[in-house]
């Protein structure tokens, strides 16, 4: 591995940035008696390191290998009958413009998977009645695992927020950068006011979610917030007259830290094409 030379150290080149002349020429070895052909190439990768690429391919003459001597002979037979004076425009033989697939009644590979699943204790249990297989993307039970969900590409990647670990300090204190935190909720004030008896039960660790799409229902919200901890209540505000969602809802967590984590993660999170705003619910004015 040699470091790509710095441009300043190089003499000026017309095709600046192309250092291919520094590389050994491409080598082609073979094909040998087994039909193996080796191609050795050198190139710079993105980090400027020189890499050697060896490609080994097998060369096979399919048509001749398959045909017998008699068949090869037949190949050169003159045309006869109506085939002698065939007009060029006749187009008797055409390659289908349509790609025809070998249609499987089951999706390819499902059978093999079933065989695997029979040895899987989890699958055994799910057959026994308990539905353990719940897809987190589309919510279907017992049909497939989340990673196998056919709607995987359409949904938001739910794993992302649990995957990249947030700096624990900021989530513990609830002071996420940029998000406004009311003075009563700030790190120092939390301890003293959080347990205030003034609050109603419903307000305990209640998180307000704004900018929900109209299609979002309580189960969806539960789905969204459950990864952060035990959710004691979910509520989506509905318009009494129209029955439509009013676009916001509340989620109550059992523990405050869980709520903090949810706010830290989901505030600004794209959900159903809308950017959520998640904050602590303001205590009811009474």
């Amino acid at each position, binding site marked *: 591995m040699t470091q790509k030379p710095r441009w300043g150290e190089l003499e000026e080149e017309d095709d600046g940035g192309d250092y291919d002349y520094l590389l050994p020429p491409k080598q082609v070895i073979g094909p040998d008696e087994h039909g193996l052909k080796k191609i050795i190439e050198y190139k710079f990768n993105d980090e400027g390191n020189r890499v050697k690429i060896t490609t080994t391919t097998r060369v096979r003459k399919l048509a001749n290998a398959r045909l017998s001597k008699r068949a090869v002979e037949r190949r050169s037979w003159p045309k*006869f009958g109506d*085939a002698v004076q065939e007009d060029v425009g006749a187009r008797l033989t055409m*390659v289908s413009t349509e790609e025809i697939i070998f249609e499987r009644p089951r999706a390819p590979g499902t059978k093999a998977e079933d065989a695997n699943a029979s040895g899987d204790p989890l699958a055994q249990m799910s057959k026994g009645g308990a539905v353990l297989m719940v897809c987190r993307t589309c919510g279907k039970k017992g049909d497939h695992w989340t990673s196998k969900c056919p709607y995987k590409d359409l949904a938001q990647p739910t794993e992302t927020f649990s995957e990249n670990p947030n700096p624990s300090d900021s989530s513990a204190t609830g002071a996420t950068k940029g998000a406004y935190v009311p003075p009563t909720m700030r790190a120092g004030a939390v301890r003293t006011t959080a347990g205030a008896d003034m609050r109603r039960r419903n307000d305990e660790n209640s998180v307000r979610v704004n900018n929900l799409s109209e299609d979002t229902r309580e189960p969806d919200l539960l789905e969204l917030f459950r990864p952060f901890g035990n959710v004691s209540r979910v509520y989506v505000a509905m318009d009494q007259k129209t029955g439509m969602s009013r676009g916001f809802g509340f989620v109550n967590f059992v523990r405050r830290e869980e709520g903090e984590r949810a706010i830290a993660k989901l505030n600004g999170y794209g959900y159903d094409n809308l950017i959520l705003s998640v904050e602590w619910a303001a205590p009811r004015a009474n």
Partner: protein
Amino acid sequence: MRPILMKGHERPLTFLKYNRDGDLLFSCAKDHTPTVWFADNGERLGTYRGHNGAVWCCDVSRDSTRLITGSADQSAKLWDVQTGTQLFTFNFDSPARAVDFSVGDKLAVITTDPFMGLTSAIHVKRIASDPADQVGESVLVLKGPQGRINRAVWGPLNKTIISAGEDAVVRIWDTETGKLLQENDKDIGHKKTITSLAKSTDGSHFLTGSLDKSAKLWDSRSLTLIKTYVTERPVNAVAMSPLLNHVVLGGGQDASAVTTTDHRAGKFEAKFYDKVLQEEIGGVKGHFGPINALAFNPDGKSFSSGGEDGYVRLHHFDPDYFKIPSI
């Protein structure tokens, strides 16, 4: 895969046959000229002009030099494969239907339809190695089955002839004495006309397709029923893969009802079944009418289908096909 479409026939296809090397494909249709194609790229090599009626069946000798065809013009003809010249004509008093060369190509079986008061018959002809010595006399004539005999093939070691036809019974005949040796059990047999019959490569078993929407696999010697493949439409054509444990059934609804139904409802597809498990493993669509003829290339890597729509579709399988799990 992208099938190769061969439009050499103006009328519905009736039969397809590969030669032993799998480089030539012979097609018969209700127009009067059987045609030979290169089986790899679908190029037309030649036609065999001379029949004056629908050609129902053909067979090619093992060395790919002789072709025999059976036609509704009450004749069966021997052809030179390379030049397309007629070598001999066997004349009958009724339309010829099925033809088959024996192992060794010394004999041929030809069936004739019931016609103008004549009953159907199975004729065995001796095939001379030199066409000049060819005679038209039958070595053996077998009679008895009612209705058309749609297929007749040679059994193991040329000792028997297996026939099947409109009366839905599979029969095994002795070629020495001309006696009927076996008939299949009525309870397990087909319920309607048997339209096609295909032998396995080694001849140990054969597959019959019937209008009763099923295909059955039989032992060639004992005539025991081995497997049954049930489908949704009448079966006009059957084929067995020489490479994998697959059978192909082709069919679709009756040609007379085609114009009144959507082509999707007709199920004009070649259906692949696992030979052992009797499970459907796939389908290949494309024809605009029922499939009348199916043939597997002897290498098992391609197959062709001929339809009522007049097209031969030659399919070279994608690599995925060979990865289908099997037991």
